[in-house]
Structure formats: structure tokens, C-alpha cells
């Protein structure tokens, strides 16, 4: 009876709970509170938060990778082969960040793994090979002896990414391999979890352009076309991106990683994912979480900055009514933006192209069915997949790290800087212009559409209840979308996102 109960307990997930999971549950509660009760972008935060719940439970069949070929992560020489055809590989129920070098793992645990034994946090039979990569410089790495076998601290551990049976181990000790070479194969009848496949939409850069298609179909460029100088406010807000790029560089991140972190300041989730995936895929999860969380928190982050940088008189400025913009003018604008932006920054083509395609579907008035699909079903489905895929990356041991916290801090700084830049640009334009701009709409230059514009409206009405800034703020808001896509293209051009 007692043994049966013990067996039952051991099959439950309670044994996998650790303090990081508990902390992440608290984070999830905060996110759900903000989404459900405070209504801070619930369409984004609810899928993200729910994905984070799944990430911090011992789930099965959610993110499991399918068994497949094992490829060498680098060029070098095989120094140890643990994989044997016919042996089974078991991974821990809770996916963890694995140590990638001999120097990063405790020697005792490495000893057990080299004998094909089980280590609770790393699984059983999961370490397949040890690879000595071709040295990048002349420095001599530390020597480590395990099980009477000599390793270097920089030797790479090659882990199984999926559970299954080893059906082929194609290399032997001393053999040279090149990066990407197939060195073994795993097989399993279970072919991967649901979100493994859904995440492909992020990794293959499919979701962000599709979201842009929906955003384009939902966006009215009329206010921007009626008042084109609003484009300058959208441009000014991009200083937040570049300022944060500088900050990330000073904190020691590489240029690629800094660009990916800086784009958080653009307040554009799809663009952040697109750029991070191309420039710094290893930082995709924290960048995506920061971008989406801060977009949801725009109504919290922006107002204090807006009030600090403007006087009450400035907040009361009433702007001239916008002229109506005809269909042909909107269509011409769409084509010109598409051609100009793609000619100037070809790497931004997927984003700009899909954004303007969505807008053309909207404005041409002859593709109503396609327009409605892009505005509703398509963007809603992709939002669910994108939100949960982002949330499911928020496992405790991946999220509660110094680098992630650094990215979160830089993300807030990016938002604040972008907000301030837009407001200051509006004030600068007022110095030279007779037709005054309410500086509150400058903050909408961050491209969180339409939250940032709504914040401008709300703050404007606090100063003057009869002042309606929403349509004026939509100008810089949509200019920010174009600006952020341009910046993403610029970073891709500069730092060559090699796929």
C-alpha cells in the first residue's frame, strides 16, 4: 500500500518543483493580474502568462523536440563517444539549460554521464559526445581529468535534444568533424510536442511578417498622410533604440546582441522577435518577453515621463483638424513607402512588404474578404501562437538570470528614452512651426499601436477634457511602425544577420 502510494507520488510532477518555478508562478500571477484585472493588453499578456505557466510545470508533449539526426555544433575532433546504437535516451521532465562545455559541469556528474548513467537534472544517456573544437586563439584551456580521461575545459558537450533510441552513432574517438555534420541519429515514435512545431513560426521568421500583415490591415495611414511631419516624431522616437544599443554595448553585449536588445525601444513585438532571431537567437526569449511585457505596460511607463517633460499649457494645445485623405492618395502612399523602404533597406522587406500589403488590402476597397481575414482571424490566430510561444520560453532557470534581468532593465530604459525623444522632438518642432503640435503626441512615436496613441489621448484629456488627440497621435504612432522596421533593417544591414 505504502509502496504503491510512493510509486504514485514519484509519477506525479511534485518532485520537479523548485524555487525558480515558484518565483515564476508569482511572475505569472502578476502578469495575469495586469492582464485580467488591470486590462493591460490582455490579448498579449494572457497568452504569454499562460505559456509561462506551462513552461514552469513538468509538462509532457508540449515543447518536446522530435527525435532526429544529431549534428555537430562546431568543427573539431571527437574526444569521447558515449552514444551507442540501441541505447535509450531519457530527458528530465522539466527542460533545463544544459552546460555546453566540460568546464561548466561538475566533474562527478560528468563522470556519471560519460558512463551513460542517469543524472536527475540532465536525464539518462542524454550526453552523446564530447567535441574538442578548433581553438579560436592560442590560449591554453584548463585541463580536467574525469574517469581517468583527460579533457579541456572548452571541450563541448553534445547532448541529445530529444528522447528516443539511438539508431546510429556515426563517429569514433579521434575523428574530425565539421560544423553541421551528422554524427548520430535518434528515433522515436513520438514526434515532438505541440509547441515545438508552433515555435517554428518564430524561428523561421513567419509569425512577425504575418502579424505585420494584420497590423497593416488594421492601420489607417490617413492621419499620417494628412500631416506628414508626424513622420519626424516617429523617427525621433527611434533614438530610444539607438540609445539602448549604446547602453547594451557599454554593458558588454556584442553588437548583434545590442541591436536586438535596443529594438525593444521600438515597442514593436514582431520586429523585436524578427531582429532578435536574426542577430542574437540566443537572446530571443528574454527580448520577446521584455518587448511584449513593456508594450502592455505602456500606460504605466509613459505617463510620468510625458508629464515630467511637458508643461500644463503645452498639454492643453489643441491641434488643427486633419484634412480627409482620399483612397487614391492612401494607395499611392502605400506603394511609395513600400518601394522606398525596400530599396533603402532590403533586409526590412518581409516586415515593410507585409505591412503595406495589409494596408493596401484595406484601402483598395475591392478585397474586403481578404482585408477582414487579415484584420481578424489571421492576426488573432498568430497572436495566440506567438504569445504562448513566447511565454513558454519563460522557464525559471532560463529567465531568472543576470542577463535576462539586464535585458529587462535595458528594455525599460529603451521605452523611456523613446518616449522622451518623441516628446522633445515635438517641442523642438514647435519652436520652428506656427502650427503647434501638442507634445503629448510625440510619445506615440513608439510603435505600440494603438496603445501609445491612446495614452496620448488620455493624458491630453486630463489637461483639457475637450481636447481630442487620438487621431493626431495615430500619425506618429504608425510612423513609429515604419521607423522601427527601418531600424531593424539598418541593424540587419550593419551586423549581417546570417541565417
Amino acid at each position, binding site marked *: 500500500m505504502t509502496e504503491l502510494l510512493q510509486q504514485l507520488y514519484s509519477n506525479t510532477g511534485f518532485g520537479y518543483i523548485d524555487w525558480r518555478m515558484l518565483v515564476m508562478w508569482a511572475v505569472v500571477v502578476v502578469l495575469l493580474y495586469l492582464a485580467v484585472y488591470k486590462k493591460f493588453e490582455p490579448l498579449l499578456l494572457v497568452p504569454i502568462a499562460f505559456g509561462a505557466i506551462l513552461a514552469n510545470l513538468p509538462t509532457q508533449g508540449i515543447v518536446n523536440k522530435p527525435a532526429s539526426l544529431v549534428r555537430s555544433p562546431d568543427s573539431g575532433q571527437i574526444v569521447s563517444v558515449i552514444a551507442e546504437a540501441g541505447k535509450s535516451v531519457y530527458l528530465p521532465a522539466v527542460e533545463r539549460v*544544459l552546460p555546453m562545455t566540460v568546464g561548466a559541469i561538475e566533474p562527478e556528474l560528468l563522470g556519471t554521464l560519460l558512463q551513460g548513467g542517469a543524472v536527475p537534472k540532465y536525464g539518462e544517456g542524454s550526453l552523446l559526445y564530447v567535441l574538442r573544437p578548433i581553438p579560436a586563439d592560442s590560449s591554453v584551456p584548463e585541463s580536467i581529468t574525469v574517469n581517468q580521461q583527460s579533457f579541456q575545459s572548452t571541450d563541448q558537450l553534445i547532448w541529445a535534444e530529444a528522447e528516443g533510441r539511438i539508431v546510429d552513432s556515426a563517429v569514433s574517438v579521434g575523428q574530425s568533424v565539421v560544423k553541421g555534420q551528422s554524427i548520430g541519429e535518434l528515433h522515436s515514435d513520438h514526434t515532438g510536442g505541440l509547441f515545438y512545431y508552433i515555435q517554428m513560426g*518564430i524561428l523561421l521568421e513567419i509569425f512577425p511578417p504575418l502579424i505585420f500583415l494584420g497590423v497593416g490591415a488594421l492601420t489607417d495611414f490617413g492621419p499620417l498622410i494628412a500631416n506628414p*511631419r508626424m513622420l519626424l516624431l516617429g*523617427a525621433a522616437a527611434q533614438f530610444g533604440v539607438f540609445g539602448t544599443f549604446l547602453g547594451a554595448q557599454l554593458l558588454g553585449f556584442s553588437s548583434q546582441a545590442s541591436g536586438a536588445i535596443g529594438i525593444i525601444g521600438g515597442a514593436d513585438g514582431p520586429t523585436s522577435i524578427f531582429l532578435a532571431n536574426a542577430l542574437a537567437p540566443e537572446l530571443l*526569449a528574454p527580448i520577446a518577453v521584455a518587448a511584449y511585457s513593456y508594450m502592455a505596460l505602456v500606460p504605466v511607463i509613459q505617463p510620468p515621463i510625458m508629464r515630467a517633460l511637458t508643461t500644463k499649457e503645452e498639454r492643453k494645445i489643441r491641434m488643427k483638424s486633419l484634412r480627409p*485623405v482620399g483612397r487614391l*492618395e492612401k494607395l499611392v502612399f502605400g506603394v511609395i513607402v513600400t518601394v522606398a523602404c525596400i530599396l533603402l533597406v532590403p533586409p526590412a522587406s518581409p516586415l515593410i512588404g507585409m505591412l503595406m500589403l495589409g494596408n493596401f488590402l484595406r484601402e483598395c476597397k475591392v478585397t474586403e474578404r481578404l482585408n477582414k481575414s487579415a484584420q481578424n482571424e489571421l492576426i488573432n490566430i498568430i497572436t495566440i501562437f506567438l504569445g504562448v510561444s513566447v511565454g513558454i520560453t519563460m522557464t525559471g532557470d532560463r529567465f531568472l538570470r543576470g542577463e535576462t534581468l539586464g535585458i529587462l532593465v535595458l528594455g525599460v530604459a529603451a521605452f523611456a528614452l523613446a518616449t522622451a525623444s518623441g516628446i522633445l522632438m515635438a517641442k523642438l518642432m514647435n519652436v520652428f512651426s506656427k502650427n503647434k503640435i501638442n507634445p503629448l503626441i510625440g510619445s506615440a512615436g513608439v510603435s505600440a499601436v494603438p496603445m501609445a496613441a491612446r495614452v496620448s489621448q488620455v493624458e491630453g484629456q486630463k489637461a483639457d477634457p475637450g481636447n481630442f488627440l487620438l487621431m493626431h497621435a495615430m500619425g506618429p504612432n504608425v*510612423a513609429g511602425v515604419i521607423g522601427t522596421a527601418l531600424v531593424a533593417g539598418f541593424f540587419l544591414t*550593419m551586423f549581417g544577420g546570417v541565417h
Partner: protein
Amino acid sequence: MYELFPSPIHLAQAAALPDAPSTVSVVVVGFLFVILVLALLAAVTSAIGAFFIKSAARDAAKAAVAAEKAAEASARAAGHATLADAPAVSRQTDADAEDPALLAVIAAAVHMVIGDRAHRVISVRSAGPGWAQEGRRQIFSSHRMR
């Protein structure tokens, strides 16, 4: 295939030393690039807008001339009837139609239907007691009859 889940070695690679000499130039060039491109787009959009505004003004002027000619023609066709007699048609109907606020609402509604094409409201006539009937119909149809 990329890893969505970062590992320590990847994070360490990401935190490599900054490329100090090029950082400031990237910031300056990048920000100026975005400002210039969007300023260029603003200029092009302004030029296109000016063209469309002029075009709309020309169309409006043509429509005004056409309306005047039509009014003159109808006045001639009415023989000795003067222009002052024309509003008599309106006066036959609803006195509310002379309310400037109501005229503004009607003009806005006409604009919504016709769009940007130049037009001028030259006559407002009541369609009879239809609104009261429509109101009653809506009230009745809002109740489910069992």
C-alpha cells in the same frame, strides 16, 4: 536550427567585448539614416498631398461653376419665375429644415455618402412623416412577440 532556449555558452558569446570604436558611429549614422529617410518620406508625402489638395480644389471649382450654370438654366426654364420662388418648395415642407444645425448635419451626411467629390446641397426637403413611422417600427420590432 536555432535554439529558442539560450544556453550559458551562447549567453557568454552574446556578452562578448563591445566593438568600442564603431559603437558611436553606428548610433550616429543609424539615427541620422532613420531621420533622413522618414524626412524624405514626409517631403514626398507632402508633395503628393499638395497635388491631391490642388486637384480637389480644381474639381470643387468646376463643380461650383457647373452648379451655377445649372441654376441659371433652371431659372431661365422657369420663365419669369425668380430665384426667390425656388425656396418656396422648401418652405412648403418642414420648417425644421431651416435650422442651421440640422442643415450642417444633413450636409455632413451627404458628404459621408458622396465622399470627396465636389458637391453642393441646393435643396432640402422633408420626406414626410417617415421618421415617426420608422421610430415606431423599430420600437415594435425590438419586442419579441410571443
